[in-house]
């Protein structure tokens, strides 16, 4: 113990000057904020624009009345609102069972060549432009039936929904902890019971979200409906007849040379946005009550 103690222990210097590191940190943080703001900006602009231009035409008639002939003021888009609901419902009816089934299969059994083909097909399908889907359905459904129809529109929308549902379902099913499967199998559950009773319910929230996303996207599709559901200025709920829908009507009204129609197109766009938002909000609310909600 002969070594002398240092007279003053070296002080820990923690109050450095504004170093390059700090500047770098501040700069990066600021750019993240900026990027986040830019993400919000388009939606904010859309909403603001729609409210500014579309709110004026929003009244009870819009929801309750059929379109009026050119030149006559007033009227509404009741048939288009109902038509959109019918078309989207039909599309979901086709796409959700098939998509969820395929997604679960991919997640649980998805090895081998067939699975690769299914995955690849879904990915390619997701990249097919929607107008091409419309043309294809025109050839596959409209021509054989001899007319435009709600059915054809539903098929087109269903095809557009399918890839999202398949791949998202696969992802959320893969997220179900392995311990759930093990617990079920260790209790003597056959594989299909484990999937049906434990895996799928546990992934239900994610599956519904996936379906919802697909439905919301499809609700705004215009191009595939132009060759399939066509549009209709009158009331129709028949599946074998052309049917009105908000997107096609917005399309027609927006490009028409009548100021009154243009105004209604804005209102239609606003209603479509609200409709999709309400739909997803309602389903999310319903999901909270689902027993199989993931514990996180």
């Amino acid at each position, binding site marked *: 113990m002969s070594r002398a103690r240092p007279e003053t222990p070296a002080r820990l210097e923690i109050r450095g000057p504004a170093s390059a590191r700090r500047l770098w940190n501040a700069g990066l943080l600021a750019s993240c904020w900026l990027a986040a703001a830019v993400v919000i900006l388009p939606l904010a602009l859309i909403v603001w624009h729609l409210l500014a231009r579309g709110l004026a035409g929003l009244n009870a008639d819009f929801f309750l009345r059929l379109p009026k002939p050119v030149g006559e003021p007033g009227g509404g888009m009741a048939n288009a609102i109902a038509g959109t609901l019918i078309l989207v419902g039909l599309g979901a009816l086709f796409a959700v069972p098939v998509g969820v089934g395929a997604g679960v299969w991919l997640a649980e059994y998805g090895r081998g060549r067939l699975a690769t083909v299914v995955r690849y097909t879904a990915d390619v399908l997701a990249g097919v432009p929607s107008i091409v889907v419309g043309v294809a359905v025109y050839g596959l459904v409209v021509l054989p039936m001899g007319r435009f129809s709600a059915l054809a529109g539903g098929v087109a929308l269903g095809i557009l929904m399918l890839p999202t549902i398949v791949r998202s379902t696969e992802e959320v099913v893969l997220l179900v*902890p392995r*311990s*759930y*499967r*093990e*617990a*079920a*199998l*260790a*209790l*003597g*559950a*056959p594989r299909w*019971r484990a999937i049906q*009773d*434990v895996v799928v*319910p*546990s992934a239900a929230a994610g599956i519904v979200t996936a379906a919802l996303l697909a439905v919301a996207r499809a609700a705004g599709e215009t191009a595939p409906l132009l060759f399939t559901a066509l549009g209709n200025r009158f009331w129709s709920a028949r599946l074998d007849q052309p049917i009105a829908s908000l997107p096609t009507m917005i399309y027609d009204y927006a490009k028409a040379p009548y100021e009154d129609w243009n105004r209604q197109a804005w209102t239609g766009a606003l209603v479509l946005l609200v409709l999709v938002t309400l739909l997803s909000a309602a389903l999310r609310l319903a999901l909270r009550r689902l*027993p*199989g*909600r*993931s*514990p996180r």
Partner: protein
Amino acid sequence: MTVETSPVIRTVLPGSREASATGGAPPAGPAAGPVIETRNFDLWYGAQHALKSVSLGVPARSVTAIIGPSGCGKSTLLRSFNRMNDLIAGVRTSGQVWVSGADVLAPATDVVALRRRVGMVFQRPNPFPRSTFDNVAFGLRLLGIRDRGELEARVEQSLRRAALWDEVRDRLGHSALQLSGGQQQRMCIARALAVDPEILLMDEPASALDPTATARIEELALDLKSRYTIVVVTHNMQQAARISDLTAFMLNGELVEVGETRSLFTRPRQKLTEEYITGRFG
């Protein structure tokens, strides 16, 4: 307990094994021989040789502990008893595993039936994200029991056996995820017991629990052995010493030594066992 050293256990009743293999009959009465037996059992995960010629007998209505350092193959061995390793791709086996006189590895074996006889509790409590009642009733519903009264009676019985009834009787309808970790694990035990298995496999059942909850699981194991054959994997040697009648020590996929717990811990026959239990490695 008439448990002796492993060489004796290994050679018990070859004849009865043959007989039951062909007949597929349930086991004879208690203590008629090992309820679980492996013979020269090897297992590979792909190229990795995880179990090397393991020959082990587990007597009925007792607690057998499998100890050893991490990665020694003890969980793999346990999961071979109810073929949970089937879930892992690339698993190959050779040798024999017998449970209650049935050849577990035979292609004709009904894995679902096997797992109903051999319950399992995992390292982490794994309740389903639903109510306590639905969790415990899960296996019963698999059996096709729909009658509400019967379900309620058997759920209560199972929860009582798992020493959990008094704590959850008022909230059977609440999510099992709201239970504490120790309660969840006892609920998982109740869930396994509900289908009335003969054997209960426990894979480090207390390693995710605090000391109090651990003590309760240990008490439970001791309590349950009057009715069930219990095999518990643990890397907690004190736990093995406290609850088991028979202890098997594994290292690098090999069964080094198996014997009555007291003598294995006080007079190990193998040098490796002695080094492990005195904490020189592992």
